């Protein structure tokens, strides 16, 4: 039993609960960057986990130091969605960068051009343009580059809203700070051989294999 919050009622009575609860329900990933909320989450974790379990959701505390609320499988009361393709591509490359010690010197602060370049190097410009714009061929190179940049920018905004990164401007240069939650993108490849683990995680509702775009981002419209 936690000393700060002996009962669930004590945890719910804390003024931080509404904020943390709202963020978790929106799919936001929390970590120590947000010290007050993180400390509350840690202190009340046992009660909150039991609380959300009643909604069929799981409060996940990753060993890398971040937490999020995972919607349960069928029968859960919370709405759920999966990330769009461009968010996945950008998230995957950000996870790669977060695992590279070269970016440690600047405390995981990268300018957005570095992200774009890493993405192009990893995926290939043609494939990237196809995935991000939905067209086999760009009308012209300038338009293609602009579409890629805009799509990456929108993906970064959405990933920031979910707590995977922070966006900031340093000396007028748009930058991203990579947060621990990016390790979620590497989770399927942690043990075994990649997609095998993704399949295991898919069975647990952590990821979705393939991308049924008609269903993109919305698995339960009617749940609150």
């Amino acid at each position: 039993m936690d000393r700060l919050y002996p009962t669930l009622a004590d945890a719910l009575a804390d003024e931080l609960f509404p904020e943390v609860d709202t963020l978790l329900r929106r799919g936001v990933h929390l970590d120590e960057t947000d010290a007050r909320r993180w400390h509350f989450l840690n202190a009340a974790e046992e009660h909150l986990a039991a609380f959300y379990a009643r909604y069929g959701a799981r409060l996940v505390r990753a060993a890398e130091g971040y937490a999020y609320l995972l919607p349960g499988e069928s029968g859960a009361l919370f709405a759920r969605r999966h990330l769009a393709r461009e968010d996945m591509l950008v998230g995957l490359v950000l996870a790669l960068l977060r695992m590279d010690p070269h970016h440690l010197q600047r405390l995981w602060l990268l300018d957005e051009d570095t992200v774009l370049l890493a993405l192009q190097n990893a995926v290939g410009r043609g494939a990237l343009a196809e995935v991000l714009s939905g067209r086999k061929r760009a009308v012209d190179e300038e338009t293609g580059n602009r579409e890629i940049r805009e799509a990456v920018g929108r993906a970064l905004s959405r990933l920031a809203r979910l707590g995977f990164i922070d966006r900031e401007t340093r000396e007028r240069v748009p930058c991203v700070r990579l947060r621990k939650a990016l390790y979620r993108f590497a989770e399927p490849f942690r043990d075994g051989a990649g997609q095998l683990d993704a399949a295991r995680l898919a069975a647990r509702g952590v990821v979705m294999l393939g991308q049924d775009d008609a269903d993109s981002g919305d698995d339960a419209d009617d749940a609150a």
Partner: protein
Amino acid sequence: MSPPPASPPPAAAVSVPLRVQQAYASGFRLEVTPEDLAFLAGLALTGEIDATTEFDLATLMQVHRSVDEVVGALGGGGERAERAVGRLIEQRLLTRLDFGGIRHGGTYTLSALARALLEHALGPERLDRQSLAVVLGSVLAHLTEIEAAARHDADPAHWEAQVEAPLRLVVHELIGAIERRQHALDAEQRDTRQAIQALLDADWDSALERCGPLLNAAAGTLRELREAMFEQTSLLNERLEAIESAALAGGHAAVAARAAGLLLRLGTVAQWCQSRFERWGEYTRTVNEFIRTQVRFDRERSVAARLAEALRSYADAPWALVVNDAGQLLRLRPEAVDPAADAHAATLPDEAEGAPAHADAALDARHAALAAALDATLAGGGSVSLAGLLAASAADTPLDLRYALYARLFAHALARHPQAAHEPAAAPVALGARLQVEDLQLTPEAR
């Protein structure tokens, strides 16, 4: 020795020829022999050992003899030593502190020029607790004397010799010595970070063990500097503020401004100590966290390799993370929409299956008008705000119909204009007293 000229005017106000003429006309020449350099190095080290920045004449003689014993080229004898001291003063390498020979024999200190020469010849001066304490102690001693001199309501010559000149020459140079050491320490820390980077590149398993001492040594130095600065800052500030007040009261605006400037520089030094300590702490935490996480997560670095491969083949084998999405009560559409691929999902019921059972003629008519306006605006190259369009055209519509209209217009926009750039608004927009919607900004599709 003549004092250095007052602060020069801004560079833009001086022409190159004028600046060159000024430099030539100053007549300053620098001839430093290896013997002079050895003498200066001996004085600097003596100051470090004795924890002082000042030397009386007897000390200068003693150091000269000691250096001569080592180098064997200075030529012994008090007369030669005095000539050496005179030469260093002429070349502005030694500064006499007692301005006008108040004390018998004089008191001397190494000038900024001498310290810069030594740094160039021997490497940068170290900034550690001991060296900082010595310099700060010396600054405090001088400021105490200057403050006492400033309390005398004396003539301008007294202020120039006993207050302004020591502030301008001695204190200015001593604080400059701290600032030079700061640059050296910054460079040292850059080297440490690069060494840690090399260790992390080489071997994660032993990185924590080997990085630890490097990180701790730098953190220890910064902690000591911060403490040394903290101990002295308030005393130094008190002295400078007292000098500033006395100068203002006596109508010596230039002295007051100089004291204020030194206060600012000391504040900057203190801030530097604090910020470097905090930043190094953050860097240490980040390194330790990375090592712990990465060694645990990906000891063989195979996860990163598989992740890179998955990224390359993503288009062929896509997958997606699932996230909770239960907090968006006001949103009619999720954020993660792929407009192009979502076209089928957004197909209107009346387009696919005939008119919906609940439709009525008024709603259909309004919807058709709004949809036509939307199509025409986009076709004409304009941008459309869905909420704006509805607010302008359907203000008189009952709230429930307005809600239904917005939903149908939203679906129409996604279905008919999948290639348009869709930007969800940052905040909900009010469409009535009890209705808020997430606005959608559409800009024409690229062709």
